[in-house]
């Protein structure tokens, strides 16, 4: 990738309800699933109103990559991201999608989904807790221009 890894959205946030689609690749997907089970009262206020269960990338604003991206799967990951309508954001969830994580030495693992897609927020963890997902999404909303 020749694009810089930091992208600050220039499009006005608009205050609409964000729809988030999870690309469930590995263990991190289970923490994402646990996050979807939290009631709205059990999420931080800064997160605002988000739908974590966007059923398809075509109707999503944010793509969360949860898990290890392998070199064989990378073209499919790119194809899936291309289906998101603009403006679109990517949140890398967990060490594997941040950098390849503990599998950075593998013969078949892509060392971070940012080798394939532009990433807006990196959430550390292995796996990160649901609270970390909420914090990462709240950060992404701030970067995208949501009112504080």
């Amino acid at each position, binding site marked *: 990738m020749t694009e810089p890894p930091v992208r600050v959205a220039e499009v006005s946030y608009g205050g609409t309800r964000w729809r988030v689609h999870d690309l469930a690749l590995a263990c991190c997907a289970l923490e994402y699933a646990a996050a979807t089970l939290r009631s709205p009262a059990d999420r931080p206020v800064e997160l605002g109103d988000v739908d974590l269960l966007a059923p398809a990338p075509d109707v999503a604003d944010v793509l969360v990559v949860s898990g290890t991206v392998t070199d064989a799967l990378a073209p499919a990951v790119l194809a899936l991201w291309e289906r998101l309508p603009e403006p679109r954001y990517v949140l890398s969830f967990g060490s594997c999608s941040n950098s390849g994580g*503990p599998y950075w030495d593998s013969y078949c693992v892509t060392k971070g989904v940012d080798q394939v897609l532009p990433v807006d927020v990196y959430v*550390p963890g292995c796996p990160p807790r649901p609270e970390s997902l909420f914090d990462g999404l709240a950060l992404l909303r701030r970067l995208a221009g949501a009112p504080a």
Partner: protein
Amino acid sequence: MSALPDRSRGVIALIDDKCTSCMLCARECPSWCIHIDSHPETTVAPPGGRLRTEAVLDRFAIDWSLCMYCGICIEVCPFDALEWAPTHDYAEPDAGALLHERDRLADWLNPAQR
């Protein structure tokens, strides 16, 4: 929000005045994500004693983008210089910012961070 369970693993904090730069955590880390620099210093000998050389810590960094939070570094440290801290809010827009240096690692045990 509901409280975190006891002993939640969020981030690993450094108690840097306990660290002797023994390099054990950096060697045992499976992900090779701990970076330590140190330099030797010779202490003043007490009367009748001999000079001792010890390693003084300069740089201690952990790359959270590689870390798998296994806790081997905490278990292996002979001086208990590493500890779990429950913080979970340290996402970054830039992966390079996930490389935390010594001051930031020492700050995780600061109550204001929790």
